[in-house]
């Protein structure tokens, strides 16, 4: 039987029972739509996080306490462990940070910005807000590519005098003061009075950017002496992270080497490092790895519904084969070979799943058009539909056709193997 005849036969069999075909399609449609939408969601989050991190500057190198071996995912901890890193046994100090400015030991280092975080309850007027207070030095804004919207950033004088001043992240400012500039106002953090000296520009929204907007910045010394109980034996100030700016992207690797060497000497290390140096590129990579896992996870969850749809196809095909046993007998008596019957039923199930896949794809675009990318992935993001990339589409369609073939083969083989006489006798 030629392919066109096979196709027509399969199609007319499907259209002869529209209700049943439609319900079977529904299983595949839901599965494919879910796979595409969820994977696009994951992909969008991934892009959003990556671009937020890239916005911080690609020539950034970060140093965190603890070795990458003992600390597990040293790089990822940059994100998750801002608050937790300080509790590590190994410590980085302000002295470590400024030692890296040594032009002999670390010529590629342009600027160093240590940071130390602390949780805080901020109160302004009647509003109460839990935020992360980040102790920083003036270099921080430059090194992390952050700009001040109103007022000024933490200055060297503020750091020297442990001044009770604070710079608000844009999100915090909005929550506490609305759209007005809060510069000059007072807020209470953990019961202590602080004067607002500035507000940062938004970091671009999205998951990661939104997180940065919810921080407030105070002088590093203020955070250390007035908000934490973290002390070292030598009276040095421990820090959570040292941000190091390399002169350019090309010198990032060299910077890592220099910084590592310098710290090994000052920490008198002979064995394993008690710190981890990570480039922004590595951070992006490991975040991509982590978010890839999320994308795959979301896809697999949705894939289960696709699988259920496939089982639905198999079920209906088995019923169809049984119902059409006599037809199979007639066809065989008329000269149909095994493979003619096999193809007829495989094409039928593949057609079912492909149609389901295509409708599911259209539906996914429809759902995508309804979803607001700006809201989900942050301001400045692409519209949701655009994250449904070719890879996702091909995957979803490929999987749905594959499912049709896979679940169609068994019923079709059963049909093809029927003995003509038995099939003709079937009532």
């Amino acid at each position: 039987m030629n392919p066109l005849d096979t196709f027509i036969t399969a199609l007319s069999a499907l259209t002869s029972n529209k209700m049943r075909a439609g319900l079977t399609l529904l299983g595949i449609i839901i599965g494919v739509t879910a796979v595409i939408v969820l994977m696009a969601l994951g992909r969008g989050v991934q892009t959003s996080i990556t671009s937020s991190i890239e916005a911080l500057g690609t020539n950034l190198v970060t140093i965190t306490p603890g070795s990458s071996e003992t600390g597990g995912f040293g790089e990822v901890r940059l994100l998750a462990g801002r608050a937790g890193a300080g509790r590590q046994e190994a410590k980085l100090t302000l002295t470590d940070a400024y030692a890296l400015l040594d032009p002999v030991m670390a010529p590629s280092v342009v600027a160093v910005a240590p940071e130390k975080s602390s949780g805080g309850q901020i109160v302004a007027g009647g509003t109460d807000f839990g935020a992360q207070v980040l102790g920083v030095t003036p270099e921080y804004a430059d090194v992390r590519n952050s700009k001040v919207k109103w007022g000024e950033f933490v200055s060297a004088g503020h750091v020297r005098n442990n001044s009770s001043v604070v710079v608000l992240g844009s999100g915090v400012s909005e929550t506490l003061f609305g759209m007005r500039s809060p510069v000059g106002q007072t807020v209470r953090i953990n019961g202590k009075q602080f004067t607002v000296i500035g507000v940062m520009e938004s970091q671009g929204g999205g998951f990661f950017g939104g997180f940065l907007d919810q921080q407030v910045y105070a002088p590093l010394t203020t955070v250390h002496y007035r908000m934490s109980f973290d002390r070292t034996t030598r009276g040095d100030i421990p820090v959570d992270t040292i941000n190091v700016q390399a002169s350019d992207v090309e010198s990032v690797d060299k910077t890592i080497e220099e910084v590592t060497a310098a710290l090994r000497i000052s920490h008198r290390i002979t064995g394993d490092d008690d710190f981890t140096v990570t480039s922004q590129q590595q951070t992006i990579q490991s975040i991509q790895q982590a978010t890839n896992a999320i994308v795959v996870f979301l896809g697999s969850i949705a894939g289960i519904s696709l699988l259920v749809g496939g089982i639905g196809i198999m079920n209906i095909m088995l019923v169809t084969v049984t119902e059409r046993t006599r037809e199979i007998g007639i066809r065989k008596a008329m000269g149909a070979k095994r493979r003619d019957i096999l193809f007829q039923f495989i094409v039928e199930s593949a057609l079912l799943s492909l149609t389901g896949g295509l409708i599911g794809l259209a539906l996914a675009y429809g759902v995508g058009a309804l979803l607001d990318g700006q809201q989900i992935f942050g301001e400045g993001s692409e519209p949701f539909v655009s994250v449904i990339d070719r890879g996702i589409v091909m995957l979803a369609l490929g999987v749905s056709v594959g499912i049709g073939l896979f679940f169609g083969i068994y019923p079709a083989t059963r049909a093809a193997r029927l003995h003509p006489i038995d099939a003709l006798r079937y009532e």
Partner: protein
Amino acid sequence: MARKRRRRKSTADTVVRQVPEDSSMTSRKRARARADRRPAERRSGSAPLLRLEEVTKTYQMGEVEVGALQGVSLEIGKGEMVSIMGPSGSGKSTLMNIIGCLDVPTSGSYFLDERDVGALSDNRLADIRGRQIGFVFQTYNLLPRMSARANVELPLTYTSGRGRRRRAQEALERVGLADRASHKPTELSGGQQQRVGIARALVKEPAIMLADEPTGNLDSRSSEEIMDVLKSLNRDQRLTVIIVTHEEDIAAQTDRVISMLDGKVVRDGRTSRQSR
């Protein structure tokens, strides 16, 4: 069941005793005798179109073996019109299925056009069915979703025949249903459906037309129409036609009647029609 079979066998013996002219002859003698009576074959002087030698067919029903055919030998030449008669369960349909290559013998051999069918693969059997055998069924066996013409075209879709639509239309004309080509089977009377079935069988220009009780579900008028079509095909195109029937008057319209009982041929003889 076993006991029943034994009892049936004894009836078979008595029947065989009643027709000594056939049972006393050796199979070769019988074949020669038959060949003498076959004008069509004598004319061509060639080997018979189909030849069965000691064909048996045994069905396994759990513990019990059912011998549906118990050693059938016969020859049928090209252009013959043969009817097969016999009581229910005597193995007529089983024999037709083997002749039609829908099934293969358990033992013995079946030659179609001098080719041993028992040795052929499933695919080759399907090919023979598609090109050389036309089946007509008691229950018509048309595909209900398709029009009459699509049903007639069906065998051609498996043998990559050219000009399918035209050939189907011609076949429908041959059975007098040209104007019903686009009707679905459910929109046709029983007799008309059976004529579509015949058109479907003859569209491939088969070597043999096999009709298992083609008039079994029809009234006498429709039966006559069907027989007229089959007879004219046999007469005009020298198509070999084998009909299974329970009706004496149908059998009387063929050249030769083969009687079966309990899986054996018990009588094989000419009818008065042979002098046509």
